[in-house]
């Protein structure tokens, strides 16, 4: 099947298996003859409810040009786009109770092209917050909120085990509490690299690379908590603020020059959101940091990998923060790597589906779309002939690996750029 052609059956023609109206059996395809087709009212109060919220205003600005629909990753696997949200709410459909509310991954591709700057990155969190306050949240997302509130990470792992991964690092990992001296870089590891087995692989690779390069750094260990940005975008702003306050206090406890982060979501949080809470410090994503070290790193990359690699731009590194080149520079520095670009790349990069809370809405999203965004992306990588799908966001490795399995493309290897660099490093097995 050609990529992108499988659209969901529109909701309007869903057939009720059993339906009796006024004593008449209109089950099955007979439904279609009797469905309510006329728009009988425009109850704009639903739109007003959205636009009355701080952050929700811009939904009213849509003049229906539909540019967003053309680039919305969700519309490709479902029936959803900001324009459609505007029209539906204008017609009186309640967004607060609609599954649409949870489908947006805040990937920012709509905002990139929107002539009216209808900003779903503000609208969705604002509306979701109200839904969260009203207790109307998909169960799996609520579980992630609860876990984050209770344990400081959405995986529900104990806080005291946050630094346990360093036992698997294969290189010394300095913890600031123990080193007791200023460091050049504070490495914010992040929840998935700290707890998720595939995230730990990337964190361990980073530790080995930093060690090989002689980077002067330290981590917060068990003093680190989830950045909370995706929870904010999913509607739990209070949780974000709570985590941010705790993190900022931990950051300020130690002396360091710059912060390096593993994940784009965390990068976005510390660069763009934490400053609103008074935390303004230099932040760098690991790809940019390693590009700075490239002159020293390149000679160490001696083991050719001989792979055709394609790169998936993380929404929160690329579109949200404008970094497209650093990851590619790193990949090109690896001997034997042939970099092939997918059709959707850079500014128009496709979304893995994990942003804006999508990471914790897997079954929900699955139920409302024809396929996962990650599955759609994996197919594209295969279509463009890649052996390896390279990523640099801790959400993505497990998402794409699962997607490769579920789409039958087991041959596709998914690796964090850190893992590929580590693999090419001299002396690594």
């Amino acid at each position: 099947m050609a990529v992108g052609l499988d659209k969901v059956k529109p909701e309007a023609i869903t057939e009720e298996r059993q339906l009796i109206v006024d004593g008449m059996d209109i089950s099955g395809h007979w439904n279609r003859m009797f469905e309510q087709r006329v728009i009988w009212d425009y109850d704009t109060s639903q739109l007003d409810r959205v636009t009355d919220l701080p952050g929700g205003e811009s939904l009213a600005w849509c003049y229906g040009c539909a540019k967003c629909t053309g680039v919305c990753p969700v519309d490709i696997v479902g029936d959803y786009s900001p324009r459609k949200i505007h029209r539906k709410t204008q017609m009186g459909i309640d967004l607060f109770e609609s599954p649409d509310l949870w489908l947006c991954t805040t990937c920012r591709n709509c905002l990139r092209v929107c002539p009216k700057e209808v900003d779903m990155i503000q609208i969705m969190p604002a509306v979701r917050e109200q839904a969260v306050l009203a207790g109307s949240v998909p169960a799996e997302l609520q579980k992630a909120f609860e876990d984050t509130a209770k344990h400081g990470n959405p995986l529900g792992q104990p806080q005291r085990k946050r630094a346990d991964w360093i036992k698997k690092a294969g290189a010394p990992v300095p913890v600031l509490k123990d080193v007791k001296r200023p460091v050049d870089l504070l490495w914010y590891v992040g929840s998935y690299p700290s707890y998720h087995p595939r995230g730990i692989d990337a964190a361990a690779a980073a530790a080995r690379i930093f060690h090989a390069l002689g980077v002067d750094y330290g981590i917060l260990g068990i003093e680190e908590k989830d950045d909370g940005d995706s929870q904010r975008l999913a509607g739990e702003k209070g949780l974000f603020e709570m985590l941010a306050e705790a993190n900022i206090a931990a950051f300020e406890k130690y002396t360091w020059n710059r912060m390096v982060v593993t994940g784009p979501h965390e990068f976005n949080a510390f660069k763009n959101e934490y400053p609103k809470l008074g935390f303004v410090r230099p932040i760098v994503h690991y790809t940019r940091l390693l590009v700075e070290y490239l002159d020293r790193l390149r000679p160490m990359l001696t083991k050719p990998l001989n792979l055709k690699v394609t790169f998936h731009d993380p929404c929160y590194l690329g579109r949200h923060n404008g970094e497209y080149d650093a990851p590619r520079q790193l990949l090109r520095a690896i001997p034997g790597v042939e970099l092939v670009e997918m059709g959707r790349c850079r500014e128009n990069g496709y979304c893995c589906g994990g942003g804006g809370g999508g990471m914790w809405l897997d079954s929900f999203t699955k139920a409302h779309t024809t396929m996962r965004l990650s599955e759609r992306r994996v197919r594209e990588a295969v279509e463009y002939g890649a052996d390896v799908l390279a990523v640099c966001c801790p959400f993505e490795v497990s998402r794409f690996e699962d997607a490769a399995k579920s789409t039958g493309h087991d041959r596709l290897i998914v690796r964090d750029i850190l893992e590929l660099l580590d693999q090419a490093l001299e002396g690594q097995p």
Partner: protein
Amino acid sequence: MPADTILIIGGGPAGLEAARLIGDLGRKVILVEKREQLGGTPVAESYAALTHGFRSAEEAMNEVIGAVRANPTVDVRLGSEVVACEGEAGNFRVRLAKSGNGAGEDLHAGAIVVATGFQHFDPGRETQVYGYYEYDDVITLADAEKMLKEQKFVIPSKGTAPERVCFIQCVGSRDRQIGNEYCSKVCCGISSKQAIEVRQQVPGAKVFIFYIDMRMYGYWENEIYWPAQEQYRVQYVKGIITEIIRKGGRLLVRGEDTTMGRPMEVPMDVVVLAVGMEPSSGTKEVARVLGLKQNKYHFIDVPHDSLDPTATSRPGIFVAGAAAGPKDLDDTMAMAGAAAMKATTLVARLARQAA
């Protein structure tokens, strides 16, 4: 010796502006107006606020009228019509008749500016699809202007504040069956302006605009359309209304929501028809008396020369404003300035050549 007087026909915005400018240049101007008052349609039809700037129409027009009245070289003849015209550029002999009593006057003019304006399309005239004369609560932009000016926008049949108001665009415009294929240019903007005013005066009212395309050129886009949508939450729905029926004490407008691809039947308290512009009876009559060529729609034809947009088919006679086709006030005033300059320079040139 060519005449140095310039005749201006029409005391609306275009005629007034032309008279003011020519008068300020020290030339003799005779301004002829059929009505017993100056100010044209904005005054005669009680316009509320003018775009752009939302200034009171009455106040703005009084300023122009005052400037004309205060100018000693401008001679105003109210209640007068041009009934005959002979001669050529530099030497027009024009007969004026006092409306009603037939008293006449002969004038000698070096150039003429026609500024006889437009009239609103009569929505009851053609196919009656919107029931303008049938339903009290179906009104036109002009009717709405009056209510807005009085700060009393109500459901006409009840006298109470409306909850739901809609505008139907392109009434009498862009319609081959009616014979008006042209776009009236201002109705999208005026509807949006009125929608803003309704939202200001009746904050509880929901306002919808049903449209084919929103045609908002120039400042209308950013000064009217975007604020109407973004600040005043006017709802724009693509898909024009085809018919209006009465249901449960309300009006039910029926059409298709083209974006959703579904029929719509929407209850409304007030329906405002965005009627377009047609040439006024004065425009058609003056064109006949002066022997000016008219276009297919009976507006005064201007030769399609972009370098000369105020010229008519008769040298020495210029046209300004909506007499030459639908136009907003900004364009009308600019065209009046151009026509004034054209007429003045022509008379000066002829005088120079004669000397």
